[in-house]
């Protein structure tokens, strides 16, 4: 049963106010609603060096009410595997182990540990909050940054390559549950985390978390930007269960009614695309359309 209204969500907050995250942080909103869907008394979180560590605060205080372990950058999934094995050894398998890593810790640095954990079929949930760059250290290029984005390591000629299709890599491990979500659709995000919590085996969630300072848009437009990523089709909301893809939320509506927003609308409001040329917009549009068609075909096949 899908959650329909904000008042259906749990009231209790698991992140105390006054955290170190930036104002209008997409990750913060993601984490806030994800923790509501999990049972925080029975959850262990593994976090690598990332924006998430900043959010978790400096010793001896943390704003998060959930048990969390800070891990080395490359070892998020490996540490989570260790936690799962440890819980099994002391017969406390009712706990959920969740790994929260950024796109740097998933697409680039953590991919080896993640692939290993997925191959072993470790009983854990992996959430990748994708803000399309190494935002914590100052907006460096990652393999999740979109083509034509100016980052601090591609300052003159913007990034030339398209974003890596991480979901395809994850899907190749044939895990039971894969989903994408967006903090601009918190009810959809909440439902997906809740669904993933009750499934045994490896679960992978990817959340596109808009980053106002990194992408270069005003703080107040956080939700609008998240919605725009879905509406222009650069981020598609879906879930894959046992190989079957199903579009959800706004993407499902777009599949029925057609997309109206284009990449030109999307890049307009962000300073990281300040150097984008007409050809690059067309290339990005073509890449987006091609992916969208693939998703639509898979969705219709059922």
């Amino acid at each position, binding site marked *: 049963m899908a959650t329909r209204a904000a008042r259906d969500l749990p009231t209790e907050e698991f992140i105390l*106010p*006054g955290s170190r995250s930036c104002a*209008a*942080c997409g990750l*913060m909103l993601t984490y806030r609603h994800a923790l509501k869907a999990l049972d925080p008394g029975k959850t262990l979180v593994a976090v690598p060096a990332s924006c998430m560590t900043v959010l978790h605060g400096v010793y*001896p*205080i943390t*704003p998060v009410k959930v048990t969390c372990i800070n891990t080395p950058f490359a070892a998020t999934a490996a540490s989570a595997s260790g936690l799962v094995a440890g819980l099994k050894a002391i017969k406390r398998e009712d706990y959920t182990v969740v790994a929260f890593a950024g796109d740097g810790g998933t697409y680039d640095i953590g991919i080896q540990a993640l692939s290993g954990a997925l191959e072993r079929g470790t009983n854990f949930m992996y959430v990748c909050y994708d803000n399309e760059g190494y935002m914590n250290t100052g907006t460096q290029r990652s393999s999740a940054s979109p083509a034509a984005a100016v980052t601090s390591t591609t300052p003159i000629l913007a990034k030339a390559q398209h974003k890596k299709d991480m979901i395809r890599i994850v899907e190749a491990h044939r895990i039971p549950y894969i989903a994408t979500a967006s903090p601009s659709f918190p009810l959809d995000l909440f439902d997906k985390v809740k669904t993933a919590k009750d499934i045994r085996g490896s679960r992978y969630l990817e959340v596109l978390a808009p980053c106002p300072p990194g992408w270069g848009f005003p*703080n107040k437009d*956080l939700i609008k930007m998240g919605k725009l990523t879905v509406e222009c089709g650069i981020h598609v909301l879906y879930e894959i269960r046992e190989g079957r893809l199903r579009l959800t939320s706004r993407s499902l509506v777009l599949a029925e009614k057609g997309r109206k927003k284009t990449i030109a609308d999307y890049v307009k409001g962000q300073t990281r695309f300040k150097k984008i040329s007409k050809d690059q917009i067309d290339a990005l549009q073509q890449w987006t359309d091609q992916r969208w068609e693939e998703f639509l075909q898979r969705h219709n096949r059922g």
Partner: protein
Amino acid sequence: MADKIRETVMAISRPAPGEAGRTGDWRSYTPVIDHEKCTGKDSCLYCWLYCPDGVISREFPLEIDLEYCKGCGVCAEECPRKAITMVE
């Protein structure tokens, strides 16, 4: 070896509000709720839903914790009744 006391030394943080100090100091614009426009009847709670820091209360009349509100303006932007305004 059996009587050897093994003590694990770990650095553990404890939860408390205001880890980064009073984050309300970061704010240049303050959100103000017009309680005549947002009466509580059939209210959407979008401000509560979309507030990244969760500083808006769920009970009516809605209140914003100005000690920790970072002043991002998401609530004012998303309010469908335009009941929240950002004041300098």
